[in-house]
């Protein structure tokens, strides 16, 4: 009897389970179906947000180390000293071959176009944003790899066993640039024109990007002539020289169209010009200069907060047990002009070879471009209202030095009976991580809000990808290359005036070195350097692998900068009546961890395409010099 009951129960259970079709066709509760996504604006927005988050980046606030690869800064961190101990950049460096990203944005564009339930104004905007992002992705690829296959539709494999129809050859380098520029032009009118939109695409971003893209293409066409071996016969790498002027014109037109826009202007809200320059990267309220950012929020969540202030805060006032990693180099610091528009290295000794004594450690840096102290924390300056303590030790009258091995170390000075502090709480101390091993800390992107240096909070400061000052400099460079130096000077003077350089440059002052140095000082630590050096084809001259001393010719574009140098302040100790007792002297210093000279080979102009990619698609040809 029992048996029968069991069998009956089993049958009933099975029969009931199979019977009901809708039971198996229930809608899942943990994932969204495609049809559900495309009917709601907010879910589509979340996909667009994902496309923004995946914006490719090389040097950025999350990756402070990448700024120390070249000559702008030293890496004061045990795990990163190797960045100053190798010679050749590997051919694969900075490479990018991300067709997953391209496929995802292509799919987005296709599916969004078909989404009938999406309301028109937002649908148009989404599509325009996606196409602008796709253009930006291709820009990131072309500046690293040269011409890449232009895939503008998602590809589908038909499982026939023969994938050759999915293989596409590389486009010519200028074809990729032309595609980007055409797309940007095409979507511009579909984007909002609102100065308060910073983390999504706007018409201003579109124009700023056009000017940057066209400028890159133009300079490759022009300066590519200087490196004839960096080219391929099929023009996958290399742009014909005669195309240069068209691109320069495009860059100038796009930049000037944006500069005419009233709603955007340079950030000029603070009286102190250095503070103003630093504040420009922090002020999120009505910032008229910033065009496009990656935004952050102070939070425990590491994915959304900005770690820059935490990892780079001065050790003496650190809010947590770390900081001080990025040390701007003397190479960069001496590139800031004097207020009379001339260049000068720092005067540490007089003509007779004797030390020059300074009353205050900041005096040696006085009378320079205000951007210096807006970009770099110099000895004697403050951060978050606290004095920095950067000095390397006591220098005695005989030239010998008494210093310590720890932050603020104490030792007995000659003639004294009590030990006293012999080195600053910020260093510089060779090989001591987080100390200012070049004598400088970074100020750009540093957040002055309390808590921004705590691991559990970090900073809300945004990462500025595009801002108006760059557009001015793009316009200046394009005008200069088109033979309009007066116009170039006019654009540059706007940016320079904001930096306190009030004596205007005139047409005859403008030359390539001026263009180069203005970008170097204005856009330091904003991720421009490598791409600029590449497109001007001077990277292999500046980073030539030779161990040369620091150049005495700051402001010269092709001066050798293979190693980063520092400038160390010492307190002079001569209590036996010298009037210089307690004053500061400075010594140019090669940090002990800098042991090798960087070499940028011709094969580094375009990153290596791996054998794996070529094996999968034999139509891809290698980049030159690999």
């Amino acid at each position, binding site marked *: 009897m029992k048996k029968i009951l069991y069998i009956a129960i089993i049958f009933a259970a099975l029969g009931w389970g199979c019977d009901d079709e809708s039971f198996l066709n229930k809608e899942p509760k943990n994932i969204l179906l495609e049809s559900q996504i495309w009917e709601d604006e907010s879910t589509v927005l979340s996909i667009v947000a994902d496309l923004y988050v995946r914006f490719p980046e090389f040097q950025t606030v999350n990756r402070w180390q990448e700024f120390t690869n070249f000559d702008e800064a030293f890496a004061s961190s045990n795990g990163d000293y190797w960045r100053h101990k190798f*010679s050749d950049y590997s051919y694969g460096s900075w490479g990018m071959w991300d067709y997953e990203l391209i496929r995802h944005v292509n799919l987005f564009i296709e599916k969004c176009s078909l989404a009938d339930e999406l309301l028109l104004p937002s649908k148009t905007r989404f599509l325009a944003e996606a196409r602008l992002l796709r253009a930006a992705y291709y820009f990131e690829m072309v500046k690293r790899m040269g011409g890449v296959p232009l895939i503008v539709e998602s590809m589908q494999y038909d499982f026939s066993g023969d994938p050759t129809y999915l293989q596409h050859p590389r486009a010519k380098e200028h074809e990729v640039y032309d595609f980007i520029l055409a797309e940007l032009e095409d979507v511009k009118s579909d984007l909002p024109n609102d100065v308060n939109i910073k983390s999504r695409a706007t018409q201003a971003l579109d124009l700023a990007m056009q000017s940057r893209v066209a400028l890159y293409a133009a300079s490759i066409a022009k300066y590519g002539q200087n490196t*004839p*071996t960096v080219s391929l016969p099929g023009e996958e790498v290399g742009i014909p020289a005669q195309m240069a002027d068209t691109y320069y014109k495009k860059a100038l037109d796009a930049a000037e169209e944006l500069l005419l826009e009233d709603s955007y202007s340079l950030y000029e809200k603070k009286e102190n010009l250095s503070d103003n320059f630093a504040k420009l990267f922090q002020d999120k309220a009505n910032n008229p200069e910033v065009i496009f950012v990656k935004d952050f929020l102070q939070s425990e969540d590491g994915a959304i907060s900005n770690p820059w202030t935490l990892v780079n805060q001065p050790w003496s006032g650190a809010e947590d047990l770390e900081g001080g990693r990025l040390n701007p180099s003397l190479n960069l610091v001496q590139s800031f002009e004097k207020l009379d528009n001339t260049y000068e290295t720092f005067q540490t000794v007089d003509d007779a070879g004797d030390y020059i004594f300074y009353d205050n450690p900041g005096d040696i840096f006085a009378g320079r471009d205000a951007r210096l102290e807006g970009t770099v924390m110099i000895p004697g300056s403050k951060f978050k209202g606290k004095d920095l303590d950067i000095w390397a030790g006591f220098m005695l009258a005989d030239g010998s030095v008494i210093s310590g091995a720890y932050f603020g170390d104490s030792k007995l000075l000659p003639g004294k009976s009590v030990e006293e502090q012999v080195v600053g709480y910020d260093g510089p101390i060779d090989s001591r991580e987080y100390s200012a091993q070049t004598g400088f800390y970074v100020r750009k992107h540093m957040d002055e809000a309390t808590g921004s240096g705590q691991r559990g909070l970090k900073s809300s400061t945004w990462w500025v990808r595009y801002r108006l000052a760059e557009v001015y400099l793009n316009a200046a460079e394009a005008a200069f290359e088109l033979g309009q130096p007066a116009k170039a000077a006019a654009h540059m003077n706007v940016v320079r005036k904001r930096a306190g350089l009030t004596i205007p440059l005139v047409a005859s002052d403008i030359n390539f070195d001026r263009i180069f140095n203005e970008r170097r000082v204005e856009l330091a630590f904003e991720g421009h350097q490598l791409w600029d050096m590449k497109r001007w084809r001077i990277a*292999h001259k500046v980073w030539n*692998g*030779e*161990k040369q001393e620091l150049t005495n010719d700051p402001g010269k574009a092709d001066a050798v900068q293979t190693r980063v140098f520092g400038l160390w302040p010492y307190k002079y100790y001569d209590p036996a009546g010298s009037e210089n007792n307690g004053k500061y002297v400075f010594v140019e210093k090669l940090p002990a961890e800098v042991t*090798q*000279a960087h*070499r940028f*080979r*011709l*094969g580094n102009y375009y990153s290596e395409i791996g*054998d*794996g990619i*070529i*094996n999968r698609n034999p139509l891809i040809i290698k980049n*030159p*010099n*690999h």
Partner: protein
Amino acid sequence: MKKILLPFLIGVISMVMVSCEYDNYEKPNARLYGNIVYQGEPINVKYNDVKLELWEPGWQLSNRIEVAVSPEGGYSALVFDGLYKLIIPSHQGPFRSIENAETNSDTILVQLKGNLNMDIEVEPYYMIRNNQFSVNGGVLTATFALEKIIKDVDAKDIEMIYLYMNKTKFVDSNYQIADAELAADGIADMNSISLSRTIPELVPAQDYFFARVGVKIAGVEDLLFSAVEKVNK
């Protein structure tokens, strides 16, 4: 403790013995070696700077085997028997390849069966001749001549001359204790070039050092070097 030690050891040893059987592949047996030469004379280069490539055709995926050229101009690769294509990529070395009669290109076909000593003849842009080092009053002076080898459309100018010193036999821009440089416009006579540099203090002290000169040819990335020479202080 001792009780478990013995079984443990036996276990480890037996595992080692067992895995020997299965994990080991036959080792490469064919050594391809030789020098990069011009008329039989090796061409000296920078350490780990110039690389040849070996490709073995016939496999589904092709990956190169990179072979570095030693500072003295030698190369050596330990591989398996087989047919290889040896190429010197066009941008490598201060020289250009000579067209191979068999392949009508710069590719050299190499049939390996056991060891093979093969010198690769190339055409350098320049050769360093009559190189001499002399020490006088703590100053090292190098004198040499430069002979232009390639004079056709590919001819290139000199860009820079370097003198390097080091305490070991590795002497180039990376491995050096002192260097001197001379730009091309400072060269009056290609048959007698001289460069000098004060010898720095050697720590720890040794009464000899090594030196050689490097020549940077315009538009050519890799430097041409003279042979490393041991110099008494």
